[in-house]
């Protein structure tokens, strides 16, 4: 069964304090790993897609990396506006459907 586990559940950072969010996955035939940002009361906003181990994607202060077992979302010098819940999801060849983790809620204090 495809499974996604994110850690930590919650993370509090000071502005400028870099850190990483983890997404561990178990999937038969990874078709893609996806990162989303979700603000309270809103739909998830697409951030990145990673397809194969070793792949990296960057956008502003965010960088996503992928290995065969996990993905990291690195946040460099975060700002308060980076506060949100970050969701990781995978698609495997068995189901072809997005399977979401529980998310990491990030709070960045000024």
């Amino acid at each position: 069964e495809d499974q996604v586990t994110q850690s930590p559940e919650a993370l509090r950072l000071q502005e400028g304090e870099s850190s990483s969010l983890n997404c561990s996955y178990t999937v038969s035939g990874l078709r893609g790993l996806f990162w989303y940002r979700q603000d309270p009361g809103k739909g998830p906003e697409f951030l990145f897609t990673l397809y194969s181990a070793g792949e990296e994607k960057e956008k502003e202060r965010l960088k996503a990396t992928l290995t065969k077992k996990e993905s990291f979302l690195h946040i460099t010098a975060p700002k308060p506006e980076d506060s949100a819940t970050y969701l990781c999801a995978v698609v495997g060849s068995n189901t072809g459907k997005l399977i979401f983790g529980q998310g990491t809620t990030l709070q960045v204090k000024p």
Partner: protein
Amino acid sequence: SAVISQKPSRDICQRGTSLTIQCQVDSQVTMMFWYRQQPGQSLTLIATANQGSEATYESGFVIDKFPISRPNLTFSTLTVSNMSPEDSSIYLCSVESRDYEQFFGPGTRLTVL
């Protein structure tokens, strides 16, 4: 990416009633999806809606409770029938762009009293 809108954005309903949620996309898409996000939880797929065919429901979701229409390539509706407080959630529609990437609408926040 596609621009997706949902109506209503939120609603408060009485137990036993039904609510229909609309999802409109600004471009033609083959696959549309409906998700539920219960309070404090992540997203759970309810069903996949393809134009011209019956929706495909995930385990734990049935057509009588969540009937779906997909009359064309830019529009879909999800009805939450005979509601109970346990149906209080955010309901989200999404579309698949390419290579399994999905883009989500803003969501409909439903509260059932």
